[in-house]
């Protein structure tokens, strides 16, 4: 839940279990995903075991934070009141170098400048003292 002392009014993740870990690393400036100890497969969102090989053994492995734009939508009419002031904005799927995809946003780019395949790298946006959101900015190819 959001910190009552903060002005941040958009929805926040529930900090619980693996999701708490994911966002805690973001707060430290690290984008980490689960990586299977046995087959090496990366995964997102967090799961209890490796759907590729069935292993229960995994670690929070650090991503390079580099990836590219896979697809996006441009929200021009907010369907949630917390985003009414934000339109137009573009929820964007980023494909990381490690192969996992993450729904996020490219922060230094207007929606009409987005392109599929555009190279990006992670930046972290502090929302509350507990939560930082992984977002992305453009990098030259």
């Amino acid at each position, binding site marked *: 839940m959001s910190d009552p002392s903060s002005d941040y009014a*958009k*929805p*926040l*993740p*529930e900090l619980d279990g693996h*999701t708490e870990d994911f966002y805690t690393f973001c707060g430290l400036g690290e984008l980490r995903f689960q990586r299977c100890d046995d087959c090496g497969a990366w*995964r*997102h*969102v967090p799961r209890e075991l490796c*759907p590729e090989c069935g292993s229960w053994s995994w670690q929070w492995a650090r991503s390079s934070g580099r990836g590219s734009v*896979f*697809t*996006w*939508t*441009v*929200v*021009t*009419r*907010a*369907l*949630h009141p917390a*985003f009414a002031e*934000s339109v137009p*904005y573009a*929820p964007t*799927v980023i494909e990381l170098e490690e192969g*996992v*995809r*993450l*729904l*996020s*946003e490219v922060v230094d780019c207007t*929606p009409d400048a987005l392109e*599929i395949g555009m190279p990006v790298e992670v930046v972290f946006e502090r*929302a509350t003292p507990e*939560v930082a*959101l992984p977002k992305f900015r453009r990098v030259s190819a």
Partner: protein
Amino acid sequence: MRDQACIVGIGETEYCRKPGSGMSTLALQLKAAAGAIEEAGLSAASIDGIMPFPNVGKAEELAANLGCENLRYAATIHMGGAAPVASLQAAAAAVVAGMANYVLIPGGWNGYSGPRVRQTVSSDTASIPGGTIARDYYLPFGMTAPPQWYSLMARRHMHEFGTRSEQLGAIAVAMRKHAQQNPRAVMHGRPMTLDDYMASPMLADPYRFFDCCLETDGGSAVVVTTAERARDLPHSPVYIMGGACGQPYPADEITNRRDIFRTGLTIAAPEAFAKAGVTPTDIDFAQIYDCFTFEVLQQLEEVGFCKRGEGGPFVEGGRIELGGELPVNTHGGLLSEAHSLGIGHITEAVRQLRGEAEGRQVANAEIGLVTGWGDFGDGSVAILRR
């Protein structure tokens, strides 16, 4: 199981927006259900199976109101909008196996005058299988509602295959055209051109306002029994030739699919055709769950009416309109008739196969196909014949 079960009764309330139905969600479902039971020539006491729509209906409550005092089989298939068509298959299996004799599949809601899905879905983590994932990984980034989820796939399709807005528009225009032949349709008397479509405001680019289904009040229901029992009932039965359902992988998370166009229907369609013993060329009309235009295009591809990537050209030139090669959503669909949770697609297929579709009747309609789509891409399909 081919042809061993059939639909013997259909019921619907009126569909409306302003000023709303003036009825409760429960009352809408009961009115539609009572209509279907009566049309089937049955009494409520003979209904011994009920398959309510996920989250909006409870079998116990429906049975207690209707007088279904012999209820034996109650089950809900949690596939969102794919549930009713998935329930057809389950109901068929239930009656053939003797788990129930007559199964009611009811649905209905105040989709207009009650809470709007586009607003509630983001706060109700129980309403969709990926609810907590959406809350923790989508919502903080502003992806809050179904048109936004699916438009991610629509854009990718445009990128990979060159699909254009005008092609999505051809779907919206076809549904609207069909609604002009359907007095029950909320958009009856309100025609729309491709120019109107292109001029409608963007909502979740590439989805415009007219790419999105209606939000309406209303209910609908069907009754399923065995072919043998159907012989004693008043209407000519509509036979369930084959049905199947399936889920994308993973079904609870929309961005990490190796192949993002592989949805539930991709798995379900070949199974349904194999069970029915027919191919896509045998289908006279299709009722395709049309929550948004691109989902129609995508389902036409995954059912196999055209190859993947060819859906754009396929929907152009009137091919999916009445009089075309494959009339789609002859009642106007969710886009232009009403959003009765997908059951309206089944009731319209029944009307077509009974020859009761009046001004929108597909000539010599013998075999029809109905799909459902729900949650993050769950799919169901049924092939029906007269």
